[in-house]
């Protein structure tokens, strides 16, 4: 297990923060921890059992909003569709994989039902992935109100069925941890991100998977990742994908300021993209990279999976869910207030003042690595426990406050 790639040089001053990583690994039983989950026909396991209402086109967003108002317990999302020049297959594929998430018991897909609609493709696609989908088309109903009534009626039936499904014991090896950071500050790379990295290494040692994404925020950190690629071919693909984003971003300006380095990052003490990336990459711990996938795509491998996304915070939550994540760990130094609608999103603060200022937002304060006797390793162990408890049904702050953010990337572009 390549779990100690950085921060493990004994005697170096850096060890003040990390503590003994081997301890975290030895704390793992020979048997992976278990949680109570929802096994699916796809072979994946849900940590939630949501009934999702999702539009195939923005034209029926209003219908989904009315359903949400009448059924607050529904997870009803809206979106703005693709953009001219975008990739329509990627759009349909992302909506399909999102609706087929193991955390969704049944997806009610709402569309217009005409020839330009992608409704049938999405419904069929969800079934192909082993999910459950219902099809409701506005043109086949008698008007807007009847469409809403049909969705509500279907929702009530599916929600009643979902409530009857019992959680059953599942292994932590069925967990897929999506990782994300938003609003990084000077502490993110010191505390929250390495804590997620330790948790990720523990999960992978238990047989599970982690998704590390945000390729725009890996520019300048390639040397940390490439030696860990399971094959030369994977490393080449990773390197090419990161480079493509560098060229893409630079096409819009003389440098990356205002794109990848935001004013909040700078106020927080981050100066350059290399610096931001070297902090971001720590969410991936030290494990071997077993696959590189595109935006919202799924891997059949288990281990550390790299996903090609552009770091847009809300769109990336969608990408992680579509890619099969059933728990998300999100680090923030500035206080990014988002949550995935269907995948529990555990939010970490990089500094304790943020956790004190926004207790309704932060589940886990990683800032105590700087202010207490806790080490990155002991915090990583605690985060791993919280991830398993969250999978088991413990609600996150984002869930308690119904933070259900959904967006598709502005370009729907694929690098």
């Amino acid at each position, binding site marked *: 297990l390549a779990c100690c790639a950085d921060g493990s040089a004994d005697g170096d001053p850096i060890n003040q923060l990390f503590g003994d990583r081997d301890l975290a690994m030895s704390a793992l039983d020979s048997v992976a921890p278990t949680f109570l989950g929802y096994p699916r026909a796809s072979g994946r396991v849900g940590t939630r059992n949501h009934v999702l209402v999702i539009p195939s086109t923005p034209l029926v967003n209003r219908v989904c909003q009315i359903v949400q108002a009448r059924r607050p317990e529904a997870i009803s999302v809206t979106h703005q569709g693709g953009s001219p020049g975008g990739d329509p297959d990627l759009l349909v594929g992302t909506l399909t994989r999102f609706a087929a998430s193991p955390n969704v018991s049944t997806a009610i897909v709402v569309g217009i039902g005409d020839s330009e609609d992608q409704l049938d493709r999405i419904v069929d696609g969800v079934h192909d992935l082993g999910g459950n989908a219902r099809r409701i088309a506005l043109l086949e109903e008698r008007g807007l109100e009847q469409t809403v009534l049909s969705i509500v009626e279907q929702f009530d039936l599916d929600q009643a069925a979902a409530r009857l499904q019992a959680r059953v014991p599942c292994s932590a090896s069925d967990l897929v941890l999506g990782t994300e950071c938003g609003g990084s500050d000077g502490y993110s790379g010191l505390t929250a991100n390495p804590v997620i990295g330790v948790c990720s290494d523990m999960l992978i040692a238990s047989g599970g998977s982690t998704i590390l994404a945000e390729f725009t925020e890996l520019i300048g950190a390639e040397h*940390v990742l490439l030696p860990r690629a399971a094959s030369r071919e994977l490393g080449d693909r990773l390197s090419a994908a990161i480079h493509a984003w560098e060229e893409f971003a630079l096409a819009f300006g*003389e*440098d990356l300021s205002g794109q990848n380095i935001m004013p909040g990052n700078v106020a927080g003490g981050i100066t350059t993209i*290399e610096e931001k990336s070297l902090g971001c990459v720590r969410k991936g711990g030290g494990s071997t990279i077993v696959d590189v996938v595109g935006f919202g795509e799924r891997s059949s491998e288990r281990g550390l999976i790299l996903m090609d996304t552009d770091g847009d915070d809300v769109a990336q939550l969608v990408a992680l869910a579509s890619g099969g994540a059933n728990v998300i760990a999100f680090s923030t130094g500035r206080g990014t207030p988002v949550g995935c609608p269907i995948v529990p999103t555990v939010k970490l603060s990089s500094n304790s003042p943020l956790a004190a200022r926004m207790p309704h937002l932060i589940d886990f304060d990683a800032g105590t690595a700087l202010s207490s006797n806790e080490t990155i390793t002991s915090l990583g162990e605690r985060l791993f426990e919280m991830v398993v408890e969250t999978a088991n049904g413990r609600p996150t702050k984002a869930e308690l406050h119904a933070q259900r953010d959904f967006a598709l990337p502005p370009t729907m572009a694929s690098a």
Partner: protein
Amino acid sequence: VIPSSVCRLILLDAADSVAVTTRLLRAGDVAVTADGHEFVATTRVPSGHKLALRDHVVGEAVIKYGAPIGVASAVIGRGEHVHSHNLVTVRGRKAALRSGTGGV
């Protein structure tokens, strides 16, 4: 044991030329690394920002996490705040700007 009045500096790699402050430093304040090396801040350095552990000439790589995070765009003295005013990215600039160091 470091007195609580003294600012701890976080060094991420033994090769680093900057360290991260754990509270606001004003010029003249003393900060210390875990292995006991003392640094006097020569400028104001906000909490979570970078303090130079050594002098840098213009064009010299600034090292954090054991890797270059850019180059000095101005002379940086030991104890100085390192940020946008004296550090510039290498990767996040168009190729024409990457050669040389003065083109900031």
